[in-house]
């Protein structure tokens, strides 16, 4: 069976759903971050998948944008982990439910 574009999109959707579920369901803040990364990469995959359906001249954008988003994701992971370390030093916990000083 040939690789249909819809399969790629379905895989992307699946990955995104897993990422989102991880981010929402897990309390460990590292897993939350991992979930977010997964969701991000799902979107990248979706981009590339759509790029494949277009003629070569127009598909460039679909292949370029994920590159940017990967670079940004690297920076984001860097900052995110640094934040987590700082918060951990402060709160002695990686449980995101403990990070609730916004309230009150």
């Amino acid at each position, binding site marked *: 069976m040939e690789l249909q574009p819809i399969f790629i999109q379905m895989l992307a959707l699946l990955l995104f759903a897993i990422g*989102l579920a991880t*981010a*929402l*369901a897990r*309390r460990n803040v590292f897993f*939350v971050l991992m979930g977010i990364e997964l969701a991000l990469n799902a979107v990248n995959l979706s981009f590339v998948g759509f790029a494949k359906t277009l003629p070569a001249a127009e598909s460039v954008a679909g292949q370029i944008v994920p590159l940017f988003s990967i670079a940004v994701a690297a920076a984001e992971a860097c900052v995110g982990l640094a934040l987590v370390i700082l918060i951990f030093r402060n709160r002695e916990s990686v449980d*995101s*439910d403990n*990070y*609730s000083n*916004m*309230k*009150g």
Partner: protein
Amino acid sequence: MTNLPLWIIPLFPLLGTILLGTVAVVSSGSKKGPSEGFVGALSVLFPALSFVSVVLLAFGMPEEGIRQTLCNWIDIPMLKVNIGFLFDGLSRVMLLFVTGIGSLIALYSIGYMHGDRGFTRFFAYINLFLFSMIVLVLSDSLLLTFLGWEGVGLCSYLLIGFWNHDLNNCKAANKAFIVNRVGDIGFLLGMLCLATLGGSAILNYDALNKFIEMLIAGGHVELATPIIAIAGLLFFVGCTGKSAQIPLLTWLPDAMAGPTPVSALIHAATMVTSGVYLLARLSRMFSVIPEVLMIVLIVGMLTAFWAAVAGLFQNDIKKVLAYSTISQLGYMFMAAGASAYDASIFHVFTHAFFKAALFLGAGAVIHALAGEQDMRRMGGLIKKTPVTACVMIFAFLAIIGFPGFAGFWSKDLILERLYTNAPFGEFFYGVGLLTAVITAVYMGRLIIMTFFGEYRGPKEKEAHIHEAPACMLFPMVILAVGAVFAGYLWADSLGIKFFEGTLAPVVGVAQDFVVGKLAVAHVNPMAFACFGTAAALLGMFIAYAIYGTKRLPRLHAKWGSAPEGFKADWTFFFDYIHSIFIVMFKAAAFVADVFVDKVLQAIQWTIGAIAEIVGDGVSSFQARKVRVQLTLSLVGLVALTAVVLLTGGLF
């Protein structure tokens, strides 16, 4: 020699400042300091070179003057100013006596400042002063003049407070600086006023004159008059600050705290006359606003009279001279107010000679008496210091307007012009004549108390009284010669009008514009000369009758020679008014402070409190856990997307 560039004139004192300043800084560590001969020679050399270049330029000057633009100074969209120089009849006269008398006084200072700790520093300041003064006089635009104007103010401050180990000197310096600042604001606002009228281009004197001519030719003067009048008034405020006129006259008597050569150079001969110079420079502008000229005239009259009366009651020899300077400046302003700018500048010129001679003479007397300034401890000095006495007596005859001496010609000219040109001329003439009588009285008092009678100081000092050294006497004698003969450049009664001719291209148009409208009464100049002579003689006679025949006031040895304070100073009235103003400003500041502190902060607090309450209310919707928040926002997003998809968009 007309191919000499104009910038060479200010260049020499600037070089002198840099060189002497470097020497002063370098030698500040060493105990002995640099050789006085070396420093003195340098400090006279640069002003003298400047003087020589002025003389060379002055002889080859074409009738309409020399204009040179050195470089671009400010070039931004709204403001284009060049550094340019204008050497015409007016700047020629001013430069000749500024650099000439400056060189002489630098020479004199070598003797006067001998052995002083700040010898080099003093001459660096003097050179900086001459540089600023030359820039002030030579510039071709108001903005560059303002630069020089501030520069001379700074030097005045530095030199009044030269002996800065005494707190009183520092206070006097601060007072001079701050009072001048009030005037400088006037100058600055005046420039802004003009700039609103014709852009920054008309800050140039030539452009300003052309602008006024254009207004007159086009018949638009009435439209522009209100703004020009405000500008004129503001410039006049600037002049009252710099030239110590009512109401900003209080700083000049205090400025006598500086070394005497400084008083002679800055506070008598040159800097204080820059106000008169500015009036003459802007004469074309002032000619279309006769109301402001009337104010100038009245202020000049009040100042001349008030300061002359105040001069009668001073015991400090330098204070007498300070008040007489203010009084003479009042004469100059009166002349300018009567649109007799050439007579006004002529008086500036002759006054520079005889007042510098008087101050240098007073300096020699103080030097001879080892720092004594109180006239009640002087007397009989004509036998001990004959040359100084002769110089001062010549200068005295010049200032009271004794026939043939410099002041006679210039003061008579002013009085004559007052009578013929000014509105209510008879009144102003009468006050001027009365002031001349008082001038003769207080100057006679000074001469009698200092040089005649018997010596009234402490006996042990008497043996040490000595004539000043030659390098001090030489400038004094030159200035005394000037005090005798400077007036012959414009001896109206003798028909010599050289001086009028040199100034005519600059101020002639403005004068004719105002005076041409008047039906000038034809008067015999000899009659004025007779009245003027009579005033001088009467004053001398009164002075002799009061002070010459009786026992003179004697200062008790134990009283000390400190000035007897605030009240006897006769500026107390104006000091009082100033302090009222200061109190008013303080009150306004207090009110503003309370307003900001209480009212505005209350508003701030209210807004802050509202924000806090609203925030508290809204935050109760917030979920405690991050994950729940995230889930809720996702649900919201999904709901929104569903709505948009199902309804096909909200709009």
